[in-house]
């Protein structure tokens, strides 16, 4: 996989499979509880999408005033990126997906 920290706004990333970080996949800085964020928020996103009849989720972003975690769903894997908290997640997710 390409080094996603080369994408402006991405501070660190890791690949998860079955809610577990793939050995050796992490690079750069990942914030607090990144595993829990992937495990719980991706599942919540699927339920929310189902509630609104939006179909298969492609990208999930979880945000707060100073933090942004962007997660891209690719088959049975999730690419989790710790991003600049001030970035706009949508174009950033598109750029990350282009680099996958």
């Amino acid at each position: 996989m390409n080094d996603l920290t080369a994408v402006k706004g991405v501070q660190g990333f890791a690949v998860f499979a079955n809610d577990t970080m793939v050995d050796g996949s992490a690079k750069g800085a990942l914030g607090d509880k990144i595993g829990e964020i992937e495990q719980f928020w991706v599942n919540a996103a699927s339920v929310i999408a189902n509630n609104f009849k939006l179909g298969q989720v492609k990208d999930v972003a979880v945000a707060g005033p100073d933090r942004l975690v962007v997660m891209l769903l690719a088959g049975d894997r999730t690419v989790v990126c710790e991003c600049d908290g001030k970035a706009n997640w949508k174009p950033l997710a598109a750029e990350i997906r282009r680099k996958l």
Partner: protein
Amino acid sequence: MGLSETIAAKKVPGLKGAFLIDAAGACQAHNCDQSAAAQSAELARQIADIVGVTGLDTIWLSSDAGLIGLRVTPGGAAGAWLSPDGDVAAAKALIDALVKAPASAAAPAAAGADVIGQIRRIATEYLTDFAETALMIQIKQAALDEKNPKPDQLAKLTGGLEKAALMIIGPSRAKEMGEKLKKAIS
């Protein structure tokens, strides 16, 4: 400013719908399923609590069919539903404005003494002999003026009735009653 006024003022490109939920759980939805909004907000709140990362309170998700943004706060929740090419930054500004709206904005059309009659009928349907006592207690706790009820007081009243009903008629019937009460005050 209520939900519709805030939506009109913010003019979000690609916006398909939005919702606002107050602290008592009363949901106001514009062009989206009220139940989907309420369930999603409750789930997001639970997940934010479980994960426990302070400040991480907003989820965005995208699919080929559209985008959803949802933010939970101690005072409620707000969200927006957009087309796939919708303007996320504008939607974020809308959600920020909605969560900052006063609690009374969640049910602006609820004022009027007749709504108390509707609440009383629904409570009696589910709580039968316990209805009047439960109403009396909850009206007092909500500090509600029956002749001129305020939307936030009504939300507190219906939320309190639903909680009280849990012990009397069980969770599924209490939830059913709660949904009817929320409809009555929306």
